[in-house]
């Protein structure tokens, strides 16, 4: 491994041929991933292996085969790993007798911070998730959204480089949800890893730099949503074209071999085009525009996680 490769591996989350079985039940199978910093969403149906991947990353379980490196650190070394990793599980794990502040502070004491430093960091974490008002209330009295936030606060309190968050946006109200997403973006921009799982595909679309699609314990696709979409050749790409002369543009596009289907909008001001070749479609639109047809906008209609999920996993 060259120095630059090593440096890149040290800054990435790397899965190399990782398999995990729970007895006879498959957890994940031959997973090879190289996740760069940024926001990465794990997307897949229930029981697809998302949580198993997260548990593997955080060393809570170990692979039966293959190896994992979290920014150059093996998950078999919890002492080193958990200093750079924060994990929020999907369960309500905070002890109900503790206040939010005590809960976070205790966790930080386990990391080895002095009491003063721990209290300072705990307060900062609670501030980041807008929970300072309820900091001294018992977790037992928290609402679902507040418990979600305190769970997030404990994961970020020690300022980790890799954040692994299982369904972190569940139960949050729209305002806090927006604030949390902004927080994810801030961390990602600092060069940290934010790895999360979510069932809300629109949300994943909105926040992710890249997605990992997983089904039946196997990685179906990984990369930016656009890259993944481009690789799905069996499904024609869909584009929404806004133009004044929709019928005229449609008749011109129909003469192109790569166009498989066109649907006119009811307002006759736009059409949905399905094409098997994006580049040829772009060239064809250019020619049409040069011929005097006014085209106001072209938007990909299925370059989102929803569509990618439907194409790759939806049929299973």
């Amino acid at each position: 491994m060259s120095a630059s490769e090593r440096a890149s591996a040290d800054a990435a989350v790397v899965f190399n041929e990782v398999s995990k079985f729970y007895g006879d039940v498959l957890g994940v199978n031959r997973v090879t991933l190289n996740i760069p910093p940024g926001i990465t969403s794990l997307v897949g149906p229930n029981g697809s292996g998302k949580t198993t991947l997260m548990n593997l990353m955080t060393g809570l379980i170990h692979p039966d085969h293959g190896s994992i490196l979290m920014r150059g650190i093996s998950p078999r070394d919890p002492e080193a790993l958990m200093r750079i990793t924060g994990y929020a599980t999907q369960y309500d794990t905070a002890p109900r007798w503790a206040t939010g502040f005590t809960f976070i502070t205790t966790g930080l004491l386990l990391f080895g911070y002095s009491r003063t430093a721990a209290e300072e960091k705990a307060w900062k974490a609670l501030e980041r998730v807008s929970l300072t008002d309820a900091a001294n209330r018992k977790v037992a009295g928290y609402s679902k959204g507040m418990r979600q936030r305190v769970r997030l606060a404990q994961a970020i309190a020690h300022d980790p480089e890799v954040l692994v968050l299982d369904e972190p946006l569940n139960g949050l109200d729209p305002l806090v949800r927006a604030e949390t997403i902004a927080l994810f973006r801030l961390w990602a921009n600092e060069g940290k890893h934010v790895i999360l799982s979510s069932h809300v595909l629109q949300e994943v679309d909105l926040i992710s730099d890249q997605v990992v699609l997983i089904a039946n314990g196997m990685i179906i696709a990984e990369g930016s949503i656009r890259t993944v979409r481009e690789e799905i050749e069996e499904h024609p790409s869909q584009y929404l074209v806004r133009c004044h002369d929709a019928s005229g543009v449609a008749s011109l596009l129909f003469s192109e071999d790569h166009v498989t289907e066109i649907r006119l909008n009811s307002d006759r001001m736009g059409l949905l085009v399905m094409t098997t070749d994006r580049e040829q479609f772009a060239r064809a639109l250019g020619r049409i525009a040069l011929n005097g047809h006014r085209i106001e906008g072209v938007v990909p209609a299925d370059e989102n996680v929803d569509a990618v999920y439907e194409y790759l996993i939806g049929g299973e």
Partner: protein
Amino acid sequence: MSVYKRGYQRYSGQLTTPWARFLVLPRYAWRRLYQQRLVLLLTMLAFVWPLVCAAFIYLTNHAELLQGLDPEFRQFIQVDGRFFSIFMYVQAGFAVFIAALAGPGLIAPDLANNALPLYFSRPLTRWTYALARLTVLVGMLSVVTWMPGLILFAFQVGLAGGSWFRANWTLGVGMISGFLVWLLILSLVAMASSAYVKWRVVAAAVSLAFFFILSGVGEMIDQVLRVTWGHIIDPAWAVNQVWCALLGVEAPEGPGAAASAVALAAMILLLVLVIERKLRPVEIVS
């Protein structure tokens, strides 16, 4: 892909020592356990017998106070192995009940709330977690067992002088090590029942039943098979055999101290395996 510029700096400040970190868990657990009235009451009651024993030691070391007593009786009341064994039996009984009260709350809530991933998402291994929970119980039980025992021993040394210590130091060592074996067994049983039974009351009952049932089964084996080795599966009986050997006291009929020690070691190993099997951060489907 966004452009990432690493502006993040890892924490480079001082950390507390591994021991300080380890003690975070027991410290919180002790605070919560001593907030339970019953635990506190039982702990306080457990100091009555050591006080009686201290009074006894004082009396035996002040011959002038025993002037009016029968010389044979005066000969009988001595601070020796038998005295310490009686002290140990009583305190061991208190320890059983305190362990049954305090133990179930240690692991069961963590398992019920799926909190183990939370613990292990810290620089903490499974074994450190288990050791921390063990420390909670051993610490609590030490307060009512070998610690007052050591104070009594020191009190006796203080009153009887160096010659008594030179002749009887093995009693002190025997008492402490005997207690530690018992505390280990009690703590592991309480932890195992806490790891398997989520309901506290039932876990406490299981913890107590472990001793009564094994004692009953041991007795049954002896009676049915007309043997004397059946009791070896009774941890209390086996520990007593070991204590008798350590304190130089006559032991009841049956397998000797060595065989009892082996049986206790096997029990400890079995309990550790039982706990190890249950203390997993992630439910394993088989």
